[in-house]
């Protein structure tokens, strides 16, 4: 049971990331690869503030969200001048910068040695030490993020985002300030990724820069592409699928000499098949 609870917690963290990333990529059509950076900033804010400064989880998480908000607002302003592939490249650049800072700013982040002993959240004296209670808390945030996604999707703000996704020139001609919209959704998405990072740091209790590389950002992008762009449900399904599939492969009973290598081959082949048969993702409403 403990195993499934732990898978559940990771699912919640990935679902938060997928929902937040799908707001930028799915609703707005902006191919962002910067998500690993915001995930990392959120995680490190909690790790540093809780272990070195005596903050509680919530205070540290709020600082992480604020930090992400400021970073994303500034970067978002720069990014909003780019489109398509260029947007993806510049956003990937941010991921590389943040990873390098986490790796090299040793006095603050402890570099490759990582930070350990990160605490769990508490509310009114109740500590979320048990995996089940931590899962319940993380799930609550997934529900909140899901509701926020649906709310934005159906709002005039969401319609404006989808309009700029379909035709930015037309949207501008209708009087919408598209740079403002792009910057806003990018900032909101980064703040949400920071929350996911906070939960990850607290759950795993040890973080190092390897969890926040550009490759992670591409993995998050794969989750929403498989699940379906512009779909809240697709985001959650994508996160669940990409998390459970490699776990399920552990149970295939492959010979142990080659099990690890075969698992990765099968996983890759399944992703290829999935994209070949269903390029728009399982519940996608839009294709990049």
């Amino acid at each position, binding site marked *: *049971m403990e195993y499934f609870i732990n898978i559940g917690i990771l699912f919640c963290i990935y679902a938060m990331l997928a929902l937040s990333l799908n707001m930028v990529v799915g609703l707005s059509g902006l191919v962002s690869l910067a998500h690993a950076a915001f995930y990392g900033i959120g995680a490190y804010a909690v790790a540093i503030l809780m272990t070195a400064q005596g903050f509680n989880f919530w205070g540290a998480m709020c600082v992480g969200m604020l930090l992400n908000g400021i970073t994303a607002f500034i970067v978002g302003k720069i990014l909003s001048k780019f489109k398509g592939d260029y947007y993806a490249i510049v956003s990937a650049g941010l991921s590389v910068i943040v990873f390098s800072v986490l790796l090299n700013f*040793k006095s603050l982040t402890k*570099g490759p*040695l990582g930070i350990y002993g990160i605490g769990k959240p508490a509310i009114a004296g109740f500590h979320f030490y048990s995996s089940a209670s931590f899962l319940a808390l993380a799930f609550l945030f997934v529900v909140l993020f899901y509701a926020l996604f649906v709310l934005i999707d159906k709002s005039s703000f969401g319609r404006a985002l989808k309009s700029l996704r379909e035709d930015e020139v037309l949207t501008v001609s209708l009087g919408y300030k598209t740079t403002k919209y792009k910057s806003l959704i990018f900032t909101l998405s980064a703040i949400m990724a920071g929350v996911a990072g906070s939960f990850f740091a607290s759950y795993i209790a*040890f973080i190092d820069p390897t969890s926040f590389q550009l490759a992670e950002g591409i993995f998050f992008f794969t989750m929403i592409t498989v699940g379906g762009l512009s779909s809240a449900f697709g985001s959650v399904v994508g996160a669940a699928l990409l998390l459970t599939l490699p776990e399920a492969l*552990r149970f295939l009973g492959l010979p*142990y000499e080659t099990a690890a290598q075969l698992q990765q081959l099968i996983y890759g082949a399944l992703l290829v098949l999935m994209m070949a048969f269903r390029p728009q993702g399982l519940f996608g409403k839009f294709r990049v």
Partner: protein
Amino acid sequence: MKKLILILGCVLALAACDNKKEETQEKPVVKIGAILPLTGGGAVLGASLKAGTLAAIEDKEKKNLKYHYEAIFEDNQQQPAKSATAANKLIASDKVNVLLTFTTGSGRVIAPIAQNAGLLNLVATLEDENAEPMGQTTFWQGPTLQSYQRILINALKKRGVKKLALLAAHVGVACAGTEHLTKLLAKKGMDVQVECFNPSDRDFRLPIQKYVKEGYEYFYLQFFPPQTDIVVRQLYEQNILPQHIFGSGIDTGADISLFENINHVGGNSGTPEFIDRLMNEYHIDNVYMAASAYDLVSLAVDAFENAEDIKNIDEITAYIKEHATRKCLSGECKLFPNGFIANEAEWRTYINGKPIPLKE
């Protein structure tokens, strides 16, 4: 869509099938769950630790034991975060009695999981002997950072090295340990230049050329694969002789033939017979930390054999605390109060593909 659901369904159904072999053993089974880097750049190290684990079980099973011992291997792709799900799977599904992993990062991720489950957690790693404990049920074994540095400084002093370019990777203690090492070398009158590289860096030619131009004849390397092999190849390209290359972690490289005559400090690799056995029976070229894995698994087996109740973690850890300081395959092992079992580091080289200790 239907085809896709069918394919995914097949995979999940296959996974759901009971793959567990029928227990033919009469003896109760003690399962050792090993979480190692079995794919990616660190796979060569994972293979070495796997061989050490299997060799220890094989040797112990030759005796008349109370239990049958079985190892189950899971891949963590050398990422500490991936170790958590692997550990939870091993605990919940395979019902392992012991966890074994590699690197301090993975050890620290698994330590609280093992402690909550009341399981022994063993970690093969190079560490600072004063590092913070990982938890009440975690023991880690490897050479100490301090012994590495002591051996290295003595060896460099004997060779009359005056100018040294220290190249390291930003991985684990490789680069993090250079600061202290540089101070120690400077105290001995050595001019040391340090440069740390990101794990994704592959081209070291320009920095090598720069140091050669500045009169640095000797190079000291602290890398992990695949960087170890790459940097050594690029040093050879610049006509640097193996006798002018030193390192720690050289023995983590994948192509051992590259490291002939390079002097390096490393964890004790065990006896020549043990090395031969790993290379011939387990078909591995690299024996990095295999002896540490062997020692840890052997100690765990002894603890289980001597326990009245193998589920009683206090009894198991008490045995380990009492017996960890001993003569190990990897030299004299000494238990520190933080749970670190230090073994001996050694200064050695490779001759005909085998690690040969050097008497300094």
